[in-house]
């Protein structure tokens, strides 16, 4: 390679930083939707680089379902402090009360779907015109056609037919009042790219990404952490297993995988060898219907 060439991670990084700067310049009130997972942690890291030595010119927004892993919440607060970033947290629990919504019921009652309400309320509260998210196109088939700048109507809805063609590296962020744009700077990264980047950049992660002992119950072949948020029946077998998480979502809808990988190298080694894709392995709710993601996106989910 000539000295004027970038390797693939540097190219992806360059593209993402370019996108971040476009967002900051084109929108009046952007926000970065921070979930505490490795993808949004990578986003924050890229944002830091994009605006250095200045601070990140938009707030980090966390829509907290109340079902998060404590490790992820601690990490979030620590990160915001380190970066001197503005952090806005809004609780799904509050939305449920204010809007008199029905708490989902069932064994793994997930507030995942209700996040949309809190998100849309938060967008309105602060007048956000662009929400930056960590979705990747490789995650799932419905995502593969998502634009990097994805226009949503005032109900947060996504219409596959209304998406603008994106050419070269020119991003058209013009919108009408009431509309907003979801921006996905790491669209072109795969799960493995994220892990390799985290390793290369020595980005710290919440401890649940590495193997640890945890009390879990076995449900349809998946390990779900015991927590006050799930219903444990007498017939359930509760075990202590050595596990790690591959994605970090709610405690109710993220499954752990058995693993001894306690360092990044070991995790990456396992992932490279893994034969199950990220979503299939760790998202309990996606198994419900095959078009689950598509429905959720149409309804304003990130």
């Amino acid at each position, binding site marked *: *390679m000539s000295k*004027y*060439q*970038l*390797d*693939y991670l*540097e*190219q*992806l*990084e*360059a*593209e993402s*930083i*370019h996108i971040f*700067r*476009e967002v*900051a*310049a084109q929108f009046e009130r952007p926000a970065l939707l921070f979930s505490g997972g490795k993808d949004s942690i990578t986003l924050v890291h890229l944002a*830091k*680089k*994009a*605006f*250095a*030595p*200045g*601070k990140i010119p938009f707030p980090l927004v966390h829509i907290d379902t109340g079902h998060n892993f404590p490790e992820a919440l601690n990490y979030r607060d620590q990160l915001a402090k380190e970066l001197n970033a503005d952090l806005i947290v809004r609780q799904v629990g509050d939305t449920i009360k204010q809007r008199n919504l029905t708490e989902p019921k069932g064994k793994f009652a997930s507030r995942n779907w209700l996040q949309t309400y809190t998100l849309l309320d938060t967008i309105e509260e602060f007048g956000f015109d662009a929400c930056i998210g960590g979705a990747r*196109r*490789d995650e799932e*088939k*419905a995502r*593969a*056609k998502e634009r990097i700048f994805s226009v949503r109507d005032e109900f947060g809805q996504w219409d*596959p037919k209304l*998406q*603008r*063609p*994106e*050419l*070269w*590296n*020119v991003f*058209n962020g*013009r*919108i*009408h009042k009431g509309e907003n744009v979801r921006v996905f700077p790491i*669209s*072109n990264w*795969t799960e*493995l*790219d994220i892990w390799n980047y985290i390793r290369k950049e020595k980005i710290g992660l919440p401890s649940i990404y590495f193997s640890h002992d945890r009390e879990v119950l076995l449900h349809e072949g998946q390990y779900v952490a015991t927590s006050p948020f799930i219903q444990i029946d007498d017939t359930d077998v509760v075990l202590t297993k050595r596990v790690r998480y591959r994605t970090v979502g709610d405690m109710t809808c993220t499954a752990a995988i058995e693993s001894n990988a306690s360092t990044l190298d070991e995790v990456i080694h396992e992932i490279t060898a*893994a*034969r*199950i*894709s990220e*979503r*299939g*392995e760790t998202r309990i709710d996606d198994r419900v219907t*095959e*078009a689950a993601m*598509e429905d959720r996106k149409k309804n304003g989910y990130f």
Partner: protein
Amino acid sequence: MDLLRFITAGSVDDGKSTLIGRLLYDSKNIMVDQLEVLEKQTKNKQAGSIDLALLTDGLRAEREQGITIDVAYRYFSTPKRKFIIADAPGHVQYTRNMITGASNASLIIILIDARQGVAEQTRRHSIIASLLNIPQVVVAINKMDLVEYSQDTYNNIVIDYAKVASQLGLQHVTYIPISALNGDNIVDASETMPWYEGQTLLNYLETVQVETNANLDDARMQVQFVIRPQTEALHDYRGYAGKVLSGVYKKGDSVKILPAGIESTIASLEVNGVAVEEAFAPQPVVIQLADDIDISRGDTIVKLGNEPKVENELEVLLCWLGDKPLQAGNKYYLQHNSRLIRTVVKEVSYKLDVNTLSQQPVTEGVKLNEVVKATIKTASPLVFDAYKTLPATGSAILIDETSNSTVAAVLIQ
């Protein structure tokens, strides 16, 4: 390890989805659970086989119609390269999608059905490849199993396509006979076509030289965002953040700010928060200048003595992407990287027939999927190069002022 972006083009049913599925499958980039879903969805197939085309078939509406209607992106990697595939559909009317997918590609795979040979669509896709200057063309002659793996059939198609290629001035064309369905010459060499001595498709994709960033001479950088921390420690810091679009910048370089024409010197360069001696395309850079001058988003910083054009009337090719037709006299926003300028389309001189390259008179408005030559006038001078010499500064989009949609791809002549 580097990165290769390519696009696949072909008529409907030439086997594009099957080919992509095959590339992902044979290079072991498909996961077990995805395969399970596929197996469930596969209908009317003999036991044990799966329909690889389903892998790349995204939205539900499309699944119902059984066609792909937009550009989708796929990712796979081998130990040698990471690949990003823009999957553009083959329908006649979807020139728009192909242009979109091709705009970032450094290689195009054009699929030909061995039974049909070079078709009207093949010409169309090749013309678009040449308009957009895609450096490498792979002609994948598919469904060889249906022509008894015949070398003569293959040779005749190669001879036919070579004529198209020379007409269009396509420089780097590679031919590979394949069967996407059976996997011949995709990842593994074909046992049924011993007469073919070239590389398999994957092998070719892994090793082809794509001259990205080859242009080290013409330094171009456009300001995206001005960084002003205004903290005590960085009180007077004023950094111009943007991507190096082309070439190399060094600390101490004498530069000119366009369109204003002011001169200064590069006082410091930072990439990703780290001070560097030089920065090159496509790095995201922050430039500080020695002089206190007023620069804002959309301004271009170039090196003295190597300057792009600065004009407000330009000749362009417009690939029309909008549903509303273009009429001469219409006003739009032109977005040229980060610069947004009001623009009027003064004159549409001719329409390019994308099947024959012939120039046709424009009688009514310019419609979706049409390519025209036009003269546009911008409200203030644009800083640009010709698309053929520097795509990064020779390309732009037109935005409808009222709907905000992206209505045209602009290739500056």
